C-alpha cells in the first residue's frame, strides 16, 4: 500500500471503523481503498473524471461519476456517517452550497483545502504583487482549477455563519502536522471535521 497524501492520512485515522462514507472527488480511490481495507468502512465515491472512476472500479470500489456542485442532490439525507471533500472545495462553483450538501448527506463532513493565507502566499502577493505559484498551488492563476481560494479564517467564518460545529481541526506545513497556533499563516493545508 502506498502512503496516503498527508491530509487523507489524517482523515483515514479519524473515520470511525465500520462507518458509511461518501468520498466526494475521490480521484483514483486511494483513501476509499484504505478505509475499506483497514477500517471495514462501507465507502462510496463520486468523481468527475472518467479515468478516476475507471481506476476506482478496477480497485473494486463503488464510484459514481458526478459533479460535487450538482450531483450530491441525488443522495438522500443522512445517507452517510461521513461525507469527505478533500482538496476540492476551492474548485467548486458554490463552496457554501456544497458544504450544505455535504452536511445534509453526511452526519459529519471532513473538508480539506489549501490555505490561501499561508505566509508564502502572503509574501508573494505583498512583495511581488503576483498570484502565488507554490507547492500546494502549483498552477498559474489563469489555468488553475481553484476558482474559490479560501483561507483558514474565511473557512471558520463560513462554518460559524452557517451554524455548523467544528469537531476537529488539523493543520499541515509541508507534510508535517503543526498545532493550531498561528495556523492562519503557518498552515499550508487545513483539515476540518464538521457536524451540524
Amino acid at each position, binding site marked *: 500500500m502506498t502512503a496516503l497524501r498527508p491530509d487523507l492520512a489524517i482523515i483515514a485515522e479519524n473515520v470511525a471503523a465500520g462507518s458509511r462514507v461518501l468520498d466526494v472527488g475521490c480521484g483514483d480511490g486511494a483513501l476509499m481503498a484504505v478505509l475499506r481495507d483497514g477500517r471495514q468502512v462501507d465507502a462510496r465515491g463520486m468523481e468527475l473524471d472518467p479515468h478516476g472512476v*475507471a481506476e*476506482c*472500479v*478496477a480497485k*473494486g470500489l*463503488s464510484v*459514481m461519476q458526478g459533479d460535487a456542485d450538482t450531483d450530491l442532490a*441525488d*443522495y438522500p439525507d443522512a445517507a452517510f456517517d461521513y461525507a469527505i471533500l478533500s482538496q476540492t472545495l476551492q474548485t467548486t462553483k458554490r463552496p457554501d452550497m456544497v458544504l450544505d450538501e455535504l452536511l445534509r448527506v453526511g452526519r459529519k463532513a471532513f473538508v480539506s483545502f489549501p490555505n490561501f493565507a499561508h505566509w508564502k502566499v502572503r509574501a508573494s502577493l505583498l512583495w511581488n504583487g503576483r498570484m502565488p505559484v507554490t507547492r500546494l498551488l502549483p498552477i498559474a492563476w489563469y489555468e488553475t482549477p481553484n476558482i474559490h481560494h479560501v483561507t483558514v479564517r474565511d473557512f471558520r467564518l463560513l462554518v460559524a455563519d452557517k451554524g455548523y460545529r467544528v469537531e476537529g481541526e488539523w493543520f499541515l506545513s509541508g507534510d508535517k502536522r503543526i498545532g493550531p497556533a498561528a495556523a492562519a499563516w503557518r498552515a499550508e493545508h487545513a483539515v476540518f471535521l464538521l457536524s451540524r
Partner: protein
Amino acid sequence: MAKPAITTASQVLELSAPLPLDGGQSLSGVRVAYETYGTLNADKSNALVIFHALTGDQCVASPHPITGKPGWWIRMVGPGLPIDTDRFFVICANVLGGCYGSTGPASSDGDGRPYAMRFPVITIRDMVRAQVAVLDALGIEQLHAVVGGSMGGMQALSFAANWPERTRAVLVIASTARHSAQNIAFHEVGRQAIMADPKWQGGDYYPSGKGPENGLAVARMAAHITYLSEEGMHEKFGRKLQDRTEKTFGFDADFQVESYLRHQGLSFTDRFDANSYLYITRAMDYFDLAEEHGGRLADAFRASKARFCLVSFDTDWLYPTSESRTIAHALNAAGAPVSFVELSAPFGHDSFLLDVPALDRVIQGFLSQ
C-alpha cells in the same frame, strides 16, 4: 432468411417443463441454444452469463454460423481478455424468440408448421427465464456476474431484479431500464417496414422460401442509424460520393452513407428472421423495469445483494447517459453497491462493441473482484 431456422453447432437444451410467459401463456418444448467458453470449476462458482443484444447471437467468441465472421465480442471475451475465459466459465444463450437455434417464430409449433405470428408475444423477463432454465440444467446456483450491452443490459437488469440471489455482480453497458417513446418509435418504423412488405404475408412467408427482405432491410437501415453517432457518421462518410465523381441526378446510392446503409440492410436479411425481429423489438418496447415493481425502480433492486456497474457512452443517443444515471440513482436509493461511468467514445451506441480501451479497463477491473 426464409429457411425455418438457422442451424448452429451450439449446444441445445430442450426444457422439460413448459415455460411460463409474462403474457399469461406458456410455451412447451422450448429449446435454448447456447455456447460456453472456459471451464466450470468444481464448486461451480466461476460462471458468468453474457446476454446478447437485439440482433446478436450466442456466438460471442466463435465464428458466426452464417457469415463465418469472428464472434461479436471477440475483443472482450477470451483467454487473458477482460472477460477472461482462463478464469471464467462464460455462457451465452440465444434469446427466446431468436433465430439462432432457440425457440422463436420460425420454430415448429408442434403441428409441424412454423409458429410465425402464432408465436406468443414475449418479454425481456421471458427471455431471462429461459436462460435461467439453462443455469438450472447446468446446476449453477450463483453466477460470478451477468454482463450485457444494449438489450443484453436489459436482460442483466431483469435478471438482477427477478433472480437476485443468482448473481454476485451485474454489469450493464449502454442500456436502459425502460424503452422511451423515441426508442419505441424507431422500432415501430422497423416493424411497419417489415409488415408493409407484401412478401411478409402476415408472417407466413416460411413455405414460400422468400421472406420480406426489402422490409427487413429498411428496418435494419433505420435501426442502424440509431446505433451510430452523428459525429461518427460525418467522420466516416461526410458527403462523400460512392464510386463516382458527380451526382447522378437520380435515386441510385450516390452518397457513401446510402450505399453503406443499403449494404447493412441487405446483408442483415441473410442472417436474421423478420418475424424474430418483430418479436424481439416488441419485447424491448414492453420493457419497463420500474413498472414491473410497482412504479419505483429502486424497489426492483431491494432484494439484490450484487455489486452493480453501469457504463454509458457520451455519443450514445439511443440509450443516453441519463438512462444509466437513472438506474444508478435507483440502485443508490436501494443501498446497492454501484459504480457508474460515462466513457467518451465516438461510435455512438455501438461503442460497446468497438475499440474503447477505457471500457476494457472498467470491465476487467469490475469482474476481477
